[in-house]
Each structure stands twice: as C-alpha cells, then as structure tokens.
C-alpha cells in the first residue's frame, strides 16, 4: 500500500469512530481496518476520545419525579410468584438488549465478529433465561433445589413443584460433536418419559443450563433424567443416561 493510500484511510479513522462515514466509505474502511494495525491503534484512541465525550457533559440533576417513576416501574417488572400462571420471558426484548450491549462492549464492526456475536448472544440469552428463571424460582418460598448426579457430571435442578417451570444446571458434561445433543426427560409415576428439552454445552464452558417448561406442574413427575441423543432429539430415550435426580 502506498503512503498516499494509507494516508487516506488514516484520515477516515476519526469519522469512523463517530460513525459519520457513508455506507460505502464505511465498508471500504472496515475492509482496510482488518489488516491494518496502525489504523486499529488509532481507532482505539479516537474511540476512547468519543467515550470521553460521553462523560464530558456536565451532569444535570433530573427532576425527582423521574426517580419516583422508575421505582414504580420496577414494581411491575418483578416476577410475581403464581400457582398457575406460566412464566413468559420477553425473549425478543432480551435478544435485542443483549445484542446492543454486546455490540457496544465489543465494538464489533466486521462480519466475522458479528457472527461471533450471534453465537454468544444465543448462549447468553439462554443463560440469562436460566439465571433469571432460577432467581425467580428461588425467591418463591416453595422452591426446591435438587441435586442431580451422574457418573462424571453433576448439577442442580431448581423448581417449584406447583409450577411447570424449572431450571437445570449441569457441570462437567462432556462436549458433544454436532451429531449429538443432550436431552432432558421428565419421568411420570408410570415410568413414561416426556421430553423436557434439548441443550448442548458450549465449547470451553463447563456449565450448561436449560429452562424446563412442562405442560403440567412438575409435581406430576417423579424424576428427571438426561441422556445423549442424536441431533434434533428423540421421541423417547435411546442413548446413554448421564444425569438423573428423583423428586
């Protein structure tokens, strides 16, 4: 690359940091950026400056009604324990909020990085659902936490027997190739199994989690098991059992 061309791209860095480039310019710049350490370094400095601009405005106290309205809105956002109403999660809202937060935090500008975001987003989304469900369940005095055991793996199942929702956490599950998946099963008193969902641990993550939503209260079942099944799941357990717990 000639010095002149490099000079042109270097001049685009501040505009890029402020997101002021037109679409075509932005595309050309991003293509250049991938391979240019100098521009990447410069960009970090301009981004830090732009972040500084965010913080540079003198603070102004908002009217006290804003705080009061916020408090009122929090009350309606708290999950309310209920015997019969199933939990519904605003997945769409969570997804866009997470995507935004990740984009902001990771400063993602290339297609390759965006693909990574989508994968992480799906993982975080599931973990967020799991942890929020678990929190909601734990706040209920009727919640129970059961130990789930296996040969190599172990875990916990948080549930409210009166409700049809629970969260399974599992540690130490071996990673699976793409042709297999873990499948959870709820077991009825008569021994019949009902699928409770599919899940896979992410590579490099020791913890896997699954939100279980059954068609009837969990007190209708007597046990939970996890088996290895072909990708896409099975109508009934066929593979090796790796985790189990009795209610």
């Amino acid at each position, binding site marked *: 690359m000639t010095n002149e061309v490099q000079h042109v791209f270097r001049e685009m860095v501040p505009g890029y940091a402020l997101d*002021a480039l037109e679409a075509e310019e932005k595309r050309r710049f991003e293509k250049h950026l991938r391979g240019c350490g100098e521009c990447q370094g410069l960009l970090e400095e301009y981004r*830090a*400056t732009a972040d500084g*601009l965010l913080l540079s405005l003198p603070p102004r*106290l*908002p009217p006290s009604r804003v705080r009061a309205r*916020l408090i009122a809105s929090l009350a309606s956002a708290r999950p309310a*324990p209920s015997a019969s109403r199933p939990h519904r999660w605003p997945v769409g809202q969570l997804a866009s909020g997470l995507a935004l937060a990740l984009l902001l935090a990771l400063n993602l500008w290339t297609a390759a990085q965006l693909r990574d975001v989508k994968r992480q987003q799906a993982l975080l989304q599931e973990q967020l659902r799991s942890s929020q469900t678990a*929190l909601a369940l734990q706040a209920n*005095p009727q919640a129970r936490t059961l130990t789930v055991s296996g040969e190599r793996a172990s875990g916990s199942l948080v549930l409210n027997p009166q409700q049809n929702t629970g969260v399974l956490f599992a540690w130490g599950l071996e990673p699976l190739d793409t042709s297999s998946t873990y499948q959870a099963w709820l077991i009825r008193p008569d021994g019949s199994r009902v699928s409770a969902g599919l899940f896979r641990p992410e590579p490099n993550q020791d913890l896997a989690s699954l939100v279980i939503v059954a068609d009837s209260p969990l007190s209708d079942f007597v046990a939970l098991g996890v088996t290895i099944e072909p990708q896409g799941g099975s109508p009934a357990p066929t593979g090796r059992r790796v985790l189990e717990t009795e209610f």
Partner: protein
Amino acid sequence: MLQSRKYPAGGRCPRGGESIRAIIHAALQGQASVSTIPDGTLIEYVARGDESALLDLYDRHAGRVYALALRMLGDGMAAEEITQDVFFKLWTHAPSYLASRGEFAVWLLSIARHAALDRLRSENRRPVLWDAEDPEALWDDLPAGETNPEETRWRSLYFALQALPPEQRQVLELAYYHGMSHGQIAQYLGWPVGTVKTRLRLGMERLRLQWLAGENPEPKSESA
C-alpha cells in the same frame, strides 16, 4: 442515612443480604451512605434483583444520563423519559453488562446515546445547536461522593470541545449528538462534504490529543 432495602416479593433474596451487610458496615464506619461501593459490585447486586442497588446507581449516574439526553434531544420531557428508560433497561439487562465488563459509566451512557438517537430518528427531530456557554451547567455542583479521578479528564475534554473553532465544534456535535453522517451534516449546514470531513477530522484530532494528554487545553487559533 440508612435507606430501606426492598427485596423481590415472595420471600428471601439470600444474596441481597450482602448489600445489607455493606450498609451496616458503612454505618459502623461512620460513613453517610453506601455510595462508595464500586459500580461493578452494585451492578452485580442489581443482576440479583436488588432494587436499592439500582437506585444507588441511579443516584450516582442519572445526572450524566439526563445531561446527555437533554443535550441530544433539547427537550426536558423526552430527556426524562430516556433517563427512566435507560435505568429500567439496567434493571432488566444487568447480566448483559456483567458479561461485557468495561467501564460501567461508558456502557450506561452508550445505551443512553443509542436510545436518544433512536428517538431522534423515529421522531425526525431537528438538531439542537447548543451555545458554548451553558448557564445551567453543574460542573461545580456535583453530588457528594463523586471522587472519580477521571473527572478532571472529562472536564478538560468538555472545555476542549468548547474551545474548538465553532465550525469544527458544530460538525462534531452534529455527528456525535445527532448521529449525522458527513453527507447529512453537509446538507444541514450547507457546506461542501469535503469541508465537513476536514473540520470533523481536525476537531477530533484536537480532542484526541487533549484526551491523551489528560491536561487542560491551550487553545490555538486554527483556520480550517
């Protein structure tokens, strides 16, 4: 003064007890409030459903969020709504901050800036060109407990922006606070695009040097 802590309805919140311990500890130490708990710890409490931790973060950061929203929207009611929305988002999305880390205030204000930009675009609002002197600025009147050493740096950047030649400052403000591209700024101000690009670049270069130096600016006159 001890604030009353509320917990999610329906029973105990075991991890929320840690923030109660922090208050008691602080009270025993003779401190007036718990505003010395770092942002990162407070947001962990928020992620666990501790409403009072969210309000601590509000008391600490709402002034900046409101100032940014007001600067971008020029409208008190809209700025109030954005401020409320941003902290509500914090309540529902706290775990996503924990996943990303980084400077909390920057993360929060980025959310606020995006929320304000969305609103600007959806309502097709006209940009508000701010005067250099803002008589209601509160730089001398910060809430007690603000002892962030970065404050001086931010303040210097603010003055550096004000000290830019007006044509550079205008371009920067339209780009940053109104999300405009070079072309849109050119159209809005009636200038050639090349002029806009140059002025934005020169203005940002000056601010970048100021930011890196972290000291008070020495304004230079410069034609662009």
